[in-house]
């Protein structure tokens, strides 16, 4: 009994030392869809969650914020599939505890991040820290996009990238703060130019590199969402800006 207790303590402290956040220094994001005269985007420094938010994390949030319970959530903030995989308001079975949270809307994701003093990543930040344009990640990305079905795995089993962030690819789709502007709006009141990017390959005229069809799929997925949408493979992680007067970060 004593032996196991000590072992547990040692293990716990070991885990507490591994950071759950990753520092991202200042960088430049080259936009995938570039408008005429649109320049590259500066970003950072910021601190990004190492792992996506899990069911366990979200349960703790719901307990403290009962308006986000499945039975309580306002229809405006999430559609009726919200948390469909939880048996009831506060029940998260052991087998899904460490899986990334899914079936949460953009409103819910934002509320969670805000409760931690954080926010969702912007598209430019997400694409940058995901290292998506690195050809070495292409197979990982495409294999997941090509695989149908909704089987998830624990966040600890996902792949860590060069920035030290885990599960950016091959695990889930992730909410970004500005998902609606991923590709231009298809609102027909605007000039017809705007909707062409979305459909029938004309998007490829604006994209940096049409062979990056994996990125196309990600942008297409984002622009299919509404703020109250949920998805069986759609989750999120949080980030916060690091405001510093040190020029070196």
């Amino acid at each position: 009994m004593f032996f196991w207790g000590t072992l547990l303590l040692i293990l716990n402290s070991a885990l507490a030392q591994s950071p759950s956040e990753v520092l991202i220094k200042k960088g430049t994001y080259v936009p995938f869809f570039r408008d005429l005269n649109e320049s590259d985007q500066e970003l950072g420094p910021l601190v990004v969650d190492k792992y996506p938010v899990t069911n366990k994390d979200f349960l703790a949030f719901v307990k403290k914020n009962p308006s986000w319970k499945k039975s309580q959530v306002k229809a405006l903030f999430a559609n009726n599939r919200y948390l469909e995989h939880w048996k009831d308001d506060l029940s998260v079975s052991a087998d899904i505890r460490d899986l990334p949270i899914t079936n949460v809307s953009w409103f819910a994701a934002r509320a969670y991040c805000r409760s931690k003093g954080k926010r969702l990543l912007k598209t430019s930040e997400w694409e940058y820290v995901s290292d998506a344009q690195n050809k070495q990640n292409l197979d990982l990305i495409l294999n997941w996009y090509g695989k149908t079905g909704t089987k998830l795995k624990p966040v600890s089993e996902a792949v860590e990238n060069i920035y030290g962030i885990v599960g950016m690819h091959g695990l889930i789709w992730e909410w970004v703060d500005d998902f609606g502007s991923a590709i231009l709006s298809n609102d027909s009141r605007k000039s017809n130019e705007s909707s062409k990017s979305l459909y029938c390959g004309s998007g490829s005229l604006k994209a940096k590199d049409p062979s990056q069809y994996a990125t196309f799929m990600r942008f297409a997925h984002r622009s299919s969402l509404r703020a109250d949408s949920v998805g069986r493979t759609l989750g999120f992680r949080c980030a916060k800006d690091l405001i510093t007067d040190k020029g070196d970060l």
Partner: protein
Amino acid sequence: MRLHLATLLLIPVLFGCWKKNGAKLEDPEKLAKVTAQLTYAPEVPAPLNRGPSRVTVNLETKEVIKRLADGVDYTFWTFGGSVPGPFIRIRVGDYVDFTLSNHPNSKMPHNIDLHAVTGQGGGAEGSFTAPGHSSTFSFRALNSGLYIYHCATAPVGMHIANGMYGLILVEPEEGLPKVDREFYVVQSEFYTKGKYGERGLQPFDMEKAIAENPDYVVFNGSVGAVANGNSMEAKVGEKVRIFVGNGGPNLVSSFHVIGEIFDHVYGEGGAVVSQKNVQTTLVPAGGSAIVDFVVDNPSTLILVDHSIFRAFNKGALGMLKVPGEVNKMIYTGKTVDSVYLAEGGAIQTMPDEKAAPAFAAKDFSERLKAGEAAYKANCAACHQPNGEGIASVFPPLAKSDFLMANKNRTIDIVIKGLEGEITVNGQKYNSVMPSLGLSDETIANALTYVRNSWGNKGDEVTPEQVKARRGK
């Protein structure tokens, strides 16, 4: 005066109908409601028998793992769980309420571009749907014809390449001419990381798709989908129509049915018959054609893309079985199978060639043996293996009075040939025996064999004797 004019103009607006391109745009609220019957290939919904209506069409997009070929699986993105998607049959003037639902297990958003739709993206703009959502839009069928529909979500080529296409038929006002049977066939390609036939779950290969170099070219979504046990069937004498689509994404099809000719072709799936008596018709990528023909004769008709390596090496092969007794008035099948002696059986040598070392029989028994071989090689084709000949065509040699009567005459005939009437064993023959160009040795051997076989009793014929007759 102005008031009257204004009222006149208002009348069509008030009554809710005005014409565009010949199709009346009835107020949708006034149209009779009906739900479209959808079928899976190769079945086609029954011909319509109704006026313009308000039609409900519901399609679901699903990502499924299914067989592409024996031992080969593929993750298909589909309409309705199959490749091609369901066949939609409506008529010109219909007002369609179209709902596209994307299964929540889908990874990808999907939408639909129907080539029959006159509107932004062919409906793609109005149907962009995230997994677990539905989208509804409505359109009016203005033009009759056979149209492809396909997913148009970026990257469009990949969504199409994974199987998201089907056909929608907009019947003309008077309907299509009556036929006995209709079939639904869509050609398309698949691009896999592995080569054709490589086993396992094969991922999509974007580079091959860009290079337009497919591993599979198939009818109805997999190798053998309409062949062998899955063949289409028709009865003799039936008029058959095939609605042919080409989902692409890249290749143009040279559509041909082996053993038949298309009586009529609605080229490119348009509204009129563009040609008759067509062997092979082009089906554009993202396009269609309508062909019909009467199956006059039982056989197994083979559907192919006549860019023929696609048919035999990549899977573009289908079957339409027409059982029954073959009509010999139209086609007999093989009636004669005979040996063809291109040069009359003689061994011809080129002037420069060194002649093979000459064989010379040393005695009577050798000559007999060699003669048997020479006879079989040069004479048996006509005079038959046992010298019996063919009645009234080739005279017999067995017990032949004509043969044995005059040795020199016999040698002459083999050297020079013979034409004109002769009588052999009481039978008249008036044929031509060609000069076979045989050597002295061969003639001597053959004649020795002939004059001493099958009841003939004669003597040896020597090469010297043959040589002596040449010149005469």
